[in-house]
């Protein structure tokens, strides 16, 4: 499988300046991160607040450029200006606040915004809008105003907007942070469908553990570095370490972990209720 995203020793410093422009302090948000993501993978990046996960995400879309190191998206160096639009087209980005990323006044117009920018012919724009809205099950809302949709529906429209640009990879920067539980479920279901059905590489950045159990691989970030890496099973079997990184594990995993400590014969890293029931009986 081809690599869709590669970072080599990526480091990013936020530089604070005082009124005269003198450097007051440097915060290293991302510190020497090297990772690669293969085409078609579902990657989750976990981390507590301030762990640098959003800063990392902004590098994939060439919104930020590395202070040191390089980021390659689909084989192209993001810090090279002539690659800028290619990179942004191949790696779409969905942000946290659903209200602040919808540009159109009607759902279908918003989904068409990306293809319009790419200079896609009118007829094809309509085809892309239709297929993207159907992929996130929002086709029947195409004539509605975004203001009348719920948060989960708005995020699905945002995902469709990115999808219409035919990206190879979608980066979602805490897409569910501002949603209620049912909205969160809706959005996660849509994201999983993208990965399963459309075979699009998904990079999901989140701090909700439950959302990461379907991922192929999880990266856990702490203080700008990658602290843990592996499949959900491998990562969640290290409950104590996750706790030290100020992260919770899913409730079922925690229960299984405690039961095992109490002496029950259970395997490590149980992720779903069904799995636990199966092992208990």
């Amino acid at each position: 499988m081809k690599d869709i995203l590669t970072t080599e020793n990526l480091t990013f410093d936020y530089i604070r300046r005082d009124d005269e422009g003198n450097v007051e302090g440097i915060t290293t948000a991302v510190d020497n991160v090297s990772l690669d993501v293969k085409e078609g993978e579902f990657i989750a990046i976990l981390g507590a607040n301030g762990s640098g996960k959003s800063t990392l995400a902004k590098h994939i879309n060439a919104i930020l450029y590395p202070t040191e190191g390089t980021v390659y998206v689909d084989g192209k160096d993001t810090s090279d200006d002539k690659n800028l639009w290619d990179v942004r087209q191949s790696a779409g980005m969905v942000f946290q606040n659903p209200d602040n990323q919808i540009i159109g006044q009607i759902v279908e117009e918003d989904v068409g915004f990306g293809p319009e920018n790419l200079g896609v012919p009118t007829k094809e724009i309509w085809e892309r809008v239709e297929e993207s809205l159907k992929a996130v099950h929002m086709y029947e809302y195409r004539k509605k105003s975004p203001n009348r949709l719920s948060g989960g529906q708005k995020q699905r429209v945002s995902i469709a907007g990115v999808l219409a640009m035919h990206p190879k990879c979608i980066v979602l920067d805490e897409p569910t942070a501002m949603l209620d539980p049912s909205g969160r479920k809706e959005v996660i279901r849509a994201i999983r469908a993208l990965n399963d059905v459309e075979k699009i590489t998904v990079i999901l950045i989140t701090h909700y553990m439950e959302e990461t159990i379907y991922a192929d691989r999880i990266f856990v970030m702490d203080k700008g570095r990658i602290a843990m890496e592996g499949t959900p099973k491998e990562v969640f079997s290290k409950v104590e370490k996750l706790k030290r990184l100020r992260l919770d594990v899913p409730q079922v995993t925690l229960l299984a972990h405690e039961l095992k400590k109490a002496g029950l014969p259970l395997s490590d890293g149980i992720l779903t209720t069904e799995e636990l029931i199966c092992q208990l009986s």
Partner: protein
Amino acid sequence: MIRDITLGQYYSTESVIHRLDPRVKLVGTLCYIISLFLIKNPIGYLVAAIFLAMVIWLSRVPVKFMIRGLKAIVLLLLIAGFFNLFFTPGEPLWSWKALTITKEGIVTATTMVLRLMFLIMGSSVMTLTTTPNNLTDGMEKGLGFLKLIKVPVHEIAMMMSIALRFIPILLEETDKIMKAQIARGADFESKNLIKKAKALVPLLVPLFVSAFRRANDLALAMEARCYRGGEGRTKMKPLIYKKRDAAGYLVILLYLVVCIYIGRVIKL
């Protein structure tokens, strides 16, 4: 509730006028306003009135919506009428103390009031039959020639449509901030003007801060979706002239010719 707000004053129905290209309606409105300043005699006003009545009838928008637009300028109409009626020098017809009505006064007052009324009604036909979206599209394309003299037409149209999109969101936010401030004892109900103005400060400051934050987020989201200005952009809903638009232009031209003819040839 605030989410249901209709922007502008679009009246949704099916009619020939609704289906016209927004550019035709823009040009038409402009021509109509110009014509109001060209005509100088009663027959001219009759023609303008008939033309307006015809368009309103075709648009199938209830007349009360047009009248509603006039309510906003009632005071202006009264003042303009009053001053022209009583303070135009000329042949006196009636006088009482300092107030004198002259023949010329009656004429100028009537033309002034009629002109203003037609002007408002004429432009509300456009806003009532065109969605704000369509209108910005029409402006972008119809005023495209201004690009030659470095007017950023695309950017202005984009700004207008983003503003339209965010008005309901910001209204809702205002409501939220207001409630939060009321919960902390702010007084928005005071009749005292100074107090009222002062109460606006804790409302406007957070609103502005949040508007800037939103603008920042939106700019980022637009860039992430490859927005790079109007260059090389295609349209999902391009404006294409149809036969009825040509007919529309023809009617406008005809009307203008008639107006000029009446103004020049027939003298009363």
